[in-house]
């Protein structure tokens, strides 16, 4: 036992705390400044940035907790391991009220702080949820910005995209203009899929008969990955493609190309609707 601030404290306790403090002081800055920029999903959109920030904060907060547990285990294995053949009882374990109290208070503060911060992020920046807000979004884009609606249609096993602003043409490719608020209207015409635009921070369920609206604001030019995140049948793993965030002028050019390429099929597509209920035809059903 040694004296710390006038109290008798176990030498082992002081050593464990010292090791923990040093490793925490090293680990947290490394997580925030080195690992953080590489945590998913990145910063291709405002929503993705929110999620990356959340992942960074959570990882940084977890580090000291993981470290204290890991250090205790390793310290015990090294220092308190059995030596020789004799099997002896260890020292009796007695409660230590200040430690228990500190643990309860500290963990409560961390959990409550995360709950407040998480709720704030969700409400103030609901775009960050990325999972869609259902058919009647409560949190609309800030500043009265009018989003560009793009319908995402899941089907076994492909994604197609409809652009109601542009004669409701439909395409298998997805390009988005940078800096523009996008309103994905995610739905399905068969089973449940999940539209996961990874780098954009969007993972919205595509449910038959539901118009699930998810807002996103692309910030960077480049390619993003689209996958299905809901097991949906034989070729679920193949429901993948790449989209692109392009400049406004490139987007206009692309739209013109797609409208021209789809000119013949547009009349057969039927009117744009928020959801589709295709009836089983002939023998199917």
């Amino acid at each position: 036992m040694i004296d710390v601030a006038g109290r008798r404290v176990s030498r082992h306790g002081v050593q464990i705390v010292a090791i923990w403090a040093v490793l925490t002081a090293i680990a947290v800055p490394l997580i925030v400044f080195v690992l953080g920029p590489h945590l998913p999903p990145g910063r291709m959109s405002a929503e993705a940035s929110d999620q990356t920030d959340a992942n960074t904060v959570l990882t940084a907060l977890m580090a000291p907790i993981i470290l204290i547990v890991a250090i205790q285990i390793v310290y015990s294995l090294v220092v308190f391991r059995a030596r020789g053949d004799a099997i002896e009882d260890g020292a009796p374990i007695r409660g230590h009220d200040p430690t228990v109290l500190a643990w309860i208070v500290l963990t409560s503060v961390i959990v409550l702080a995360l709950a407040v911060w998480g709720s704030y992020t969700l409400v103030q920046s609901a775009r960050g949820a990325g999972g869609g807000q259902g058919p009647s979004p409560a949190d609309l884009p800030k500043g009265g910005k009018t989003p560009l609606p793009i319908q995402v249609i899941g089907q076994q096993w492909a994604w197609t995209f409809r652009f109601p602003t542009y004669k409701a043409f439909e395409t298998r490719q997805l390009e988005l203009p940078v800096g523009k608020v996008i309103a994905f209207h995610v739905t399905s015409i068969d089973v449940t899929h999940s539209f996961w635009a990874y780098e954009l921070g969007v993972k919205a369920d595509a449910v038959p008969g539901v118009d699930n609206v998810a807002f996103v604001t692309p910030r960077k030019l480049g390619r993003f990955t689209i996958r299905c995140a809901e097991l949906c049948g034989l070729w679920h793993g193949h429901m993948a493609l790449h989209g692109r965030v392009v400049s406004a002028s490139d987007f206009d050019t692309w739209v013109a190309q797609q409208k021209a390429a789809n000119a013949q099929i547009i009349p057969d597509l039927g009117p744009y609707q928020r959801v589709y209920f295709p009836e089983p035809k002939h023998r199917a059903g």
Partner: protein
Amino acid sequence: MVMPPAVAAASGTPGNASLTLQTVASLGFGPHADWVSYLAKNPQGKWVHSTNLVVPANSLIHVTIYQYDTATGLRNPFWGEPEGTVGEAKVNGKAIPILNPDLASHTFAIPELGVTVPLKGVADNAKNQCSLAPCTLAEAHNTITFTFRTGKRGTFRWQCFVPCAAGFILGFGGPMQSLGYMDGLLHVV
């Protein structure tokens, strides 16, 4: 998952190969005799119950599909426009820029290669409809022809986009979820 036997495309002039397929409303044999299915013709001219196809890389693949099944209809009319072909897709020798979605019986689609061709179904009241695979040219059918180009080597899935599985919820179960029936692999070698 049972992998059907591989069926190679018939080789032609350098840079060309031919695939011959047929679709039938019910296979007529095997563990799922009543399932809708594709069959492939091997280079020896024999029909094989398989959707496991082998084609050469960097080549033009000339496809002929004998379509013996009746129409089911596309759930998404978007797939009614042939895409990704070299030249036009034809039904019985006539080009089809767009197929009425209600007339589609199946599609032959290789999504990763951007190839989609809708297959026009036989009329419901057609005489002499095929009831047992392999069907013969004497039975009611449509002949769909098209060509697509392969690139580098790889394995790609191909599938039908028409919910054509009779007796399954929304027509999407059973043969629509099974290799050897309405789904297959295209090995580009």
